[in-house]
């Protein structure tokens, strides 16, 4: 059941070329929609039926998001694709850009048609130079074939498609920070409301979708929304790209139906490396709270199950850690990441991420104080739910997660000024 949607052409040579993409029915759906002038509402209904939820991490239903746009608004409308993949542990969008860029081009064009956007941007993180070139090449090929530009396939529909390269800022993965960045400003998230569907890029109605979300669209519409939905489980339709990294034998990106048991994904990744023992799993990117390995082995990979276990499916980025891993050191590094990447705009995140990092860093370096664990819990709680964007929560949640399951390791560090892992084992 693997590789049903985005990776279905993975067996082809040079699958990023338009001829190869078209040999498997690529651009047929777009052509059909434009020829038949399919009512946008019909496409939105299809997306709703498919159960596709935003693959960037927040999981918002895609069809519903598209339906928020007033197609008849007198201003311009914009479609923006979020390829600012930066959540630690996530590396799936890079593969889409490299291996199936035309699915994304087609998905972006269809979405633009639905919301009546004549300009679409793909925001690709600046470090992804090679994936960017692959994608830009796909745009150029699509333009040459008449799929991009004015009066596409004689339909009267115009759509320009361009890439905006990022400059190195995790926070730009947040949709409104990303819009600010396209406007040539610092990537500081905007306060919502108003939401981008009303006031987005250049103040116009805008839809922002993740790369994987948009790249799934052509297949969903071609093969049927129900078929896609039925790949997955209740409330988590379709299949999903899972990035798995860490101490597994074969890290990589795997396309699996939603609801696949974690153990299956784990097996596909070859299990633990060097016969080591699984200790913990971060199931949905570094912002998602850690789950002990033995708990994880009983879970399935879908939104509800992971949420019930106290974490998040997020971007589907799974980081597997073995029993040699010091959780204090892991949190120290994650804390540094959020401290480095906070945009600085709002107080709790600007000040709180640095505080969290410094406390954990002290503990890791043998300078922990008895009150530090309580302080960590309290500071993370004071950030949570009080910031403009989700970065504050993203920085706070892993702290709570670590302390939930691995408080003893922190306590040991504080008491003994050294690491418990491997200490007396």
């Amino acid at each position, binding site marked *: 059941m693997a590789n049903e949607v985005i990776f279905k052409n993975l067996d082809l040579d040079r699958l990023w070329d338009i001829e190869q993409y078209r040999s498997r029915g690529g651009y047929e759906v777009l052509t059909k929609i434009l020829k038949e002038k399919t009512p946008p509402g019909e496409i939105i209904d299809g997306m709703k039926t498919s159960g596709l939820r935003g693959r960037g991490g927040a999981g918002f239903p895609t069809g519903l998001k598209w339906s928020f746009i007033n197609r008849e608004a007198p201003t311009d409308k914009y479609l923006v694709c979020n390829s600012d993949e930066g959540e630690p542990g996530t590396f799936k969008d890079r593969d889409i850009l490299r291996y199936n860029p035309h699915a994304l081009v087609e998905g972006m064009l269809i979405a633009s048609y639905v919301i009546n956007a004549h300009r679409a941007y793909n925001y690709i993180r600046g470090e992804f130079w090679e994936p960017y070139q692959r994608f830009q090449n796909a745009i150029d090929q699509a333009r040459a074939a008449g799929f991009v530009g004015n009066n596409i396939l004689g339909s009267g529909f115009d759509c320009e498609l361009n890439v905006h390269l990022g400059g190195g800022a995790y926070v730009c993965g947040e949709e409104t920070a990303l819009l600010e960045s396209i406007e040539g400003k610092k990537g500081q998230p905007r306060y919502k409301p108003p939401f981008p569907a009303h006031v987005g890029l250049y103040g116009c109605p805008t839809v922002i979708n993740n790369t994987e979300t948009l790249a799934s669209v052509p297949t969903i519409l071609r093969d049927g929304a129900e078929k896609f939905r039925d790949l997955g489980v209740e409330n988590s339709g379709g299949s999903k790209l899972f990035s798995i990294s860490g101490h597994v034998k074969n890290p990589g990106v795997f396309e699996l139906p939603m609801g696949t048991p974690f153990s299956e994904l784990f097996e596909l990744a070859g299990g633990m490396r060097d016969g080591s023992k699984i200790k913990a799993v971060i199931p949905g990117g570094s912002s998602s709270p850690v789950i002990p390995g033995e708990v994880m082995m009983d879970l399935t990979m879908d939104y509800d199950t992971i949420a019930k276990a106290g974490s998040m499916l997020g971007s589907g980025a799974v980081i597997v850690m073995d029993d040699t891993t010091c959780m204090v050191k892991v949190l120290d590094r994650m804390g540094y990441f959020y401290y480095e990447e*906070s945009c600085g*705009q709002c*107080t709790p995140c600007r*000040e709180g991420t640095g505080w969290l990092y410094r406390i954990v860093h002290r503990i890791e370096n043998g300078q922990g104080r008895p009150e530090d664990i309580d302080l960590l819990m309290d500071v993370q709680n004071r950030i949570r739910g*009080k910031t403009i964007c989700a970065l504050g929560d993203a920085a706070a949640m892993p702290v709570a997660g670590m302390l939930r399951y691995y408080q003893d390791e922190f306590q040991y560090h504080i008491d003994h000024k050294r690491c418990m892992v491997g200490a007396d084992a």
Partner: protein
Amino acid sequence: MSEEKTITIEVDGQSLETKLGALLIDVTDAAGINIPRFCYHNKLSIAASCRMCLVEVAKVPKPIPACATQVMDGMVVQTRSPMALAAQKSTMEFLLINHPLDCPVCDQGGECELQDVAVGYGSDATRFVEGKRVVPENNVGPLIATDMTRCIHCTRCVRFGDEVAGMREIGATGRGEHMTIGTFVARNVDSELSGNVIDLCPVGALTSKPFQYRARAWELTRHTGVAPHDSVGSNIQIHTRRNEVMRVHPDSNDSINEIWISDRDRFSYEGIKSEDRLAQPLIKKNGEWTAASWEDALEAAASGLKEIATADAEQVGTLISPTATLEEIALAQKITEGLGSPNIDYRLRQEDFRGNSTAVPWLGQSIASLEHVNAALLIGSNIRKDQPLLAHRVRKAALNGAKIQFINPLQLDLHFDAAQMVSDPAGMVHNLAAIAEAAGGSHHLTEQIEVGEEHKAIAAELKDSESAVILLGNIAQSHPDYTILYGLASVIAKATDSSVGVIPVAANSVGAAVLGAIPDHGLNAHTMLESPRKGYLLLGVEPGRDTNNPALACAALKNAECVVAVTAYRSPCLEETANVMLPMSAFSETSGSFVNAEGTWQSFAGTTTPAGESRPGWKILRVLGNLFDIQGFDYNSSEELLGELKESHAGGLKITSLGAAKGKIRSVVTGLIRVGETPIYASDALVRRAVSLQKTKDARDATVARVNLSVASNAGLSDGDKVAVVQGEGRAEMILKVDAHIPDGCVWVPAGVPGSESLGDQFGELSLEKV
């Protein structure tokens, strides 16, 4: 509209009626419910970033910022519930962890929003044991002191620059904890409104440099006052300690200055304590200035002028500064009249007096209404520098889509979108006549006028606008063809159904006009100097700096038999030409009244005692009147005098025309013509002596002569050359700057600045010589 719908919300159990869509924080503020805040400011856009105003709203799982929450019917809000208080206290703790808490050495101490809010929401002890953030400083100029380590990143200053000052000079560079508010590089903040960030800054990060370490907030006594420079009449607070003005702050008045003041209004107080202050009466004896008693000096002044008046009253002339108070002007009028002279004037920078002189030059509408115009044509106006807060209103109109058009003898650096038609002074007349013709009016000029597409476009713009205004600015009023410009403006206004007005030059230009301090069949400010008098009474006038033609003024005064100067300052020209100098109190030392650009009468009290032996101007004039034996000088207070003035002069201002645009165009020259703008910090005696303002870019930029590249090449000159500006006998050496803002045929040579005393008409013919 649904926005107007009245709804009811509940805050802390209290039911409040308000409009749908209003901001929660505005609603609670109006109801007297205090929600702490730092980034929110009702004159700035919403940032919602400090997170201090988080409150609990029923059915919302997380605390939300009151500053960014629009109220809805039935909304139930708790500002002090456990959730709200916990959120507010969390923010307070985060704000304080990296704040230096150096309140004892911080200028903001005692008037610090962070300090105030910390009392209510902070904790006694810190849980933060790490090292605090330290931010390196950049010098941002002579007016604003920075200590960015204290900054709490509210971004009010950044938003002010962008949204109000119209100049993005301050920004937030870096990110996260390393984000720093500032200019990033060592670069001055140059906006003429920059000082307002001092008031906006909730902490001691941005404070007043001239005031630095001078006093504590709680030592200061606050007095209300009126700013004495431009014609806005901004409401101010004068803060004094032990009889000394320590600083000036804005006082809010939404219909005049809102909550802002210009840097000129804020920092000019430094001029009060200038070394130039005249501390005691002086009499010139055998060419030497000697100290005299008040009695002797007044006697000398009175007898000198009386002798001349007795022989021929027409030989006496009175020149009044347009920054003098109503009370002073009225008494100077009475004296002049009592001596039998018809020669009195306040229009010191005006050259062209051909029009109807009884017309009161005023805005013709309210200051606040300027921001609602759909189109404006500004003639001869550097409004941004001459009248910063009127420019702010016009800017607001422009941001709302109003079409703003300038006709000027120089290209302006503006902070809003506007079209600028730039030409030499004579070209301004032609352009205006062409617009008049395009609008369907007749211009009465004998010259051939060519009407171009651009003229038609302006005429059409004015015609098509629901509310259009035509205004003549400071430059127009010094223009050799002011009367014609005004006449043409009136023609255009009539043809396009626009209103027409004058932007009065100084704090009390309108007041002087209302009182009629102009000659009735006598000599005006120009002819009084052109046909020299034997005796002059000068009220607050520095002849070398305050007049349209200082060379003419100084020559006339030098040859006079008796020049009595009532003045707060000594100046070279007065020392050379006057016979008696009577020390007058300066700004803040006297009570008085001004009438501003929109005709509002505003009075103020004296707040400090006059320096040295100086006395309030109205008292000096009262005694002089008595010495002249003129009736009706027995006022016990300035209020008594004001009461009389109000009775006879108050009432709405009318829009009266200066008359038809007839006559010869005088600004036509064969060679080069001077564009003699009066720069912002050279406008009057007080500001010229404000040392910090004199260090600003605006002041430094006003020390050079400017020409465009083609004028420079034709004259064989280049940028940086030392040149002599020659006007008749007058000669001033300056550095030449090549500047594309200056049109062909023109040389920008500022008036009112050091070195300009020997020059002639502000807009007169000149030549350039390489030195």
